[in-house]
């Protein structure tokens, strides 16, 4: 079974930091041409440099996934410069944590818009090329909290669980065209997003992790690389949990 991504074009959203960055670099290491997006020009330049420094093909580009016109333009540009996108990793995400009793509509909408609606938008944009190519991999980064729940994250958990349901529907819709759609659900990974948590919350979470430590972004990237690779050709509609035993179904 091969894990090579040679000749593939991969698009990774939210690639300037954390999990997205690790995913972009891992897909590049396996031979893919990688385009990583960031919400700022500086972030895009940073990805560009990381890809070039690693001797990989690809580029960093600026994108706000909630901007439909920008998404369409970006996919067009990627296809023009590098070819049809064969691997899409929907990683870009935000949190707006708050107890439900205090959660504002804007906090709900912002999370659902970025973490759910934009995932559908990006998936739809790459579908045409994948259908014609009779090949494609859509991989969504979800979260353990979609399964386990988490106080203060009703919006985030709902959006991530929504993505998992959408992935199963798309897997059925696109399976006949040899396009697989899967999710990777990280647990507690050491990134800027989790570093923002208070110490007490971190300690409580650590106590529930069988492996007794936080995960590294590279450990999520490995799971994504597997799902993107020829080795995972028969895997679709599933969620691969990578959480150190924090949640077991």
């Amino acid at each position: 079974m091969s894990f090579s991504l040679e000749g593939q074009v991969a698009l990774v959203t939210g690639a300037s930091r954390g999990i997205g960055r690790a995913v972009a670099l891992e897909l590049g290491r396996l031979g893919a041409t990688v385009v990583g997006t960031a919400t700022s020009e500086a972030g895009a330049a940073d990805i560009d440099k990381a890809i070039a420094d690693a001797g990989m093909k690809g580029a960093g580009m600026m994108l706000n996934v909630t901007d439909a016109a920008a998404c369409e333009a970006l996919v067009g540009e990627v296809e023009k410069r590098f070819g049809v996108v064969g691997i899409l990793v929907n990683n870009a995400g935000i949190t707006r944590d708050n107890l439900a009793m205090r959660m504002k509509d804007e906090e709900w909408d912002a999370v659902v818009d970025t973490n759910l609606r934009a995932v559908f938008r990006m998936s739809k944009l790459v579908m045409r090329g994948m259908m014609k190519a009779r090949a494609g991999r859509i991989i969504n980064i979800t979260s353990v909290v979609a399964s386990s729940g988490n106080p203060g994250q009703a919006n985030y958990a709902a959006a991530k669980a929504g993505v998992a349901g959408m992935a199963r529907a798309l897997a059925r819709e696109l399976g006949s065209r040899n396009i697989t759609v899967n999710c990777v659900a990280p647990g507690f990974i050491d990134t800027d997003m989790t570093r923002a948590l208070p110490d007490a919350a971190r300690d409580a979470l650590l106590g529930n992790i069988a492996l007794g430590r936080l995960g590294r972004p590279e450990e999520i990237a490995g799971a994504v690389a597997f799902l993107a690779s020829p080795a995972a050709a028969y895997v679709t509609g599933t969620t691969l949990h990578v959480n150190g035993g924090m949640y077991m179904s």
Partner: protein
Amino acid sequence: MENIEQRVKKIVAEQLGVNESEIKNESSFVDDLGADSLDTVELVMALEEEFECEIPDEEAEKITSVQQAIDYVNANVKK
């Protein structure tokens, strides 16, 4: 240059994997040529590319047979 009817039939044959000789003008994509719903979406995409046009969704839904595709192209695409 092939005429529109021939071009449409060629695309239908390629897209649905059927022999051009089996395709009649009155053939329905789904009932006669074995297309599923995704096939019909792809067929419209292929027609858009061949004839360099954009077919709105509400028009695309009405194209269910070879003749309807030919009629659409004749009526809407600049020659």
